């Protein structure tokens, strides 16, 4: 086996393990192209039809056996205050003022095509199912609530008052009912068919048809078609009858209108998770390169120390030799001029002086 072959094998092993770590059913594509599950279902919420009767809330409560709320479902005054989904209310209907008119919008999990919660979960509790639903498995949930931070729609709720088994709760797309061939509870209960269930691809076509046929009625923007990478649940909003017409499918220009309906069109058309992939991508680079970088720095430090030491020793040796030579020369001169006795005395005195100096130096170093 030559070197190139070995490296190729190493490389492909890395790729294989990287692929295995991403979710298995996805195809190995260079970039995400939605819809990932072309057959997946979705729901189109037409807010021009919604009258705010809360039938969907009631149906959701009943089919999911959620605790009964304090105020009954026919009390429509609750729509006047802004509510959000929580652990016990998986869907709520809010009233918004849109260009002076009351518009109702149902809030629930959008069931993103590439969900932020699933990307954020570090224990793999969330799963995008082929039928379009984003499901949550509480048995392995650690309760870190990063999914709630990640969700751009403020959807998941947490059971803060549960001591022993607190879990994240959200709309399930009535997955158990879908499996039985039934419609989601809210869709079935809607007296206005403001919720249309179908294949996501068909729903987009249907929404487009509605917009084309009623250009004055609808804002030309299907919320959720591309937002946050696309969502299974999508929203149609009424157009402003008085204002200028908003150009089609323009998230920036439709933004102010959608904002009145509590929808953010500035989430971008990439899945939220992809925002973190760049940062995560640097991990292997750092793991690979930092040891080299700092190991190199360490080696350089060591080398410099060694060189410094060598230089120092050389200088010291030189100095010693110089002093010895000087002493010899001086003693020889004294011997020639003063005689042997004087030379001996001078040698002794010099040796003592050097010794004393050396000791003083050692002390100084040691202190």
């Amino acid at each position: 086996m030559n070197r190139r072959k070995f490296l190729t094998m190493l490389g492909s092993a890395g790729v294989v393990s990287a692929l295995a770590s991403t979710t298995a059913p996805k195809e190995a594509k260079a970039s995400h192209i939605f819809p990932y599950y072309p057959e997946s279902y979705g729901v189109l919420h037409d807010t021009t039809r919604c009258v705010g009767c809360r039938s969907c809330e009631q149906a959701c409560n009943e089919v999911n056996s959620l605790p009964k709320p304090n105020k009954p479902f026919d009390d429509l005054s609750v729509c006047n205050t802004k509510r959000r989904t929580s652990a016990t209310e998986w869907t709520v209907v809010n009233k918004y003022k849109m260009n002076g008119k009351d518009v109702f919008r149902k809030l629930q999990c959008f069931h993103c095509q590439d969900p932020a919660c699933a990307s954020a979960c570090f224990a793999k509790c969330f799963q995008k199912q082929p039928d379009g639903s984003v499901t949550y498995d509480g048995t392995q949930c650690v309760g870190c609530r990063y999914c709630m931070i990640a969700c751009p729609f403020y959807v998941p709720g947490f059971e803060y008052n549960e001591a022993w088994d607190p879990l994240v709760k959200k709309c399930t797309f009535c997955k158990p009912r879908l499996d039985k061939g039934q419609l989601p509870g809210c869709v079935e209960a809607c007296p206005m068919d403001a919720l249309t269930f179908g294949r996501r691809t068909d729903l987009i076509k249907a929404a487009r048809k509605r917009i084309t046929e009623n250009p004055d009625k609808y804002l030309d923007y299907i919320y959720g078609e591309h937002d946050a990478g696309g969502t299974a649940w999508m929203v149609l909003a009424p157009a402003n009858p008085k204002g200028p017409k908003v150009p089609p499918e323009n998230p920036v220009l439709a933004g102010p209108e959608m904002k009145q309906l509590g929808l953010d069109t500035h989430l971008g058309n990439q899945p939220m998770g992809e925002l973190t992939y760049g940062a995560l991508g640097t991990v292997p680079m750092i793991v690979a390169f930092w040891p080299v970088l700092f190991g190199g720095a360490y080696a350089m430090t060591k080398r410099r120390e060694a060189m410094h030491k060598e230089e120092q020793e050389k200088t010291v040796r030189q100095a010693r030799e110089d002093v010895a030579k000087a002493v010899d020369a001086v003693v020889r001169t004294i011997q020639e001029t003063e005689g042997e006795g004087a030379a001996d005395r001078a040698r002794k005195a010099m040796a003592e002086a050097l010794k004393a100096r050396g000791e003083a130096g050692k002390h100084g170093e040691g202190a």
Partner: protein
Amino acid sequence: MRNRTKMLLLTAIALVGAACLMFREPEGISAAHAPELTDSGAQPAMVLFPVSDKPSRGVSGMKPVVFNHKLHEGKVQECESCHHTGDPVPCTTCHTVEGKAEGNFVTLERAMHASNIAPRKDGRTPQSCVSCHRKVYTERLECAGCHSIVKPTENDDWCAVCHADLPSLTREQWQAGIQGKLSPAENVAIASSTIASKKPHEYLEGSRTRYRVTLDTLKDKYEANVFNHARHIVSLQRKIANDPLANAFHSSSSILCQTCHHHEPATTQPSKCVSCHTPTIDRAHPERPSLKAAYHLQCMGCHDGMEVKRPRNTDCTGCHRLRTVQQEETK
């Protein structure tokens, strides 16, 4: 006893209604638009030809349109609404069939039919015939009811409302008109004679339709709704009786019926809603409203458009009473 009183009362109301109709109807529609001089000094009516810059090869293109200037002048507040440059010249001065530089290459077809005109910064946004008419039927409450749920089908009949046959127009006159060479006097004469010869439409009388319809397919939590069919028709007809625009475009007597009885030709025996709108959502046609939603969308759509305040959309018992256990037992 109570039923008889009710019956008498209803008969009385129906009679009064019918009487009103009989007296009001003729005076509204038969008021012929005699050619008179207009306030602005413009001709009372004219034929608008599809003027073309190309050397004409005989009579071709769209049929000319008779334009009742006087009538429109009364409806529109300012001349600039149509003469958007502020200069009262014929449209074809700038907008020809092919379009030319003076008109920013906006073709005559666009100038007359464009419905999505970008607003101009100086506020003088031009209007076309179609956009102005659309504004009328979406903003006037009498119209907005039906027109919030149905839109005009833009078919040949719709075109022919304006682009009608002109019996008094000769081929030579037509050709001259296209070239812009028809004398104004001749033009006005043709227009006036056409307007004078117009006959009002006849509507299906409210009394000839079903008086009441009981909508009981879905009664479960609520009682059946008893829909006063005749009253709705009479009321709709009365609301548009004096409106020349509505009368021009609701060209057949049955067109009002087709707001609710859509997707089928007019008949006195229309099919039931439930024949298409199934009581539960049809999984094969998820886009088609279920029966309940179909009712609600029709009723509430129209009421919302007309800004009918009562009953509120969420006041279920305003239209169908709550069904009590006792009632269920007795049945």
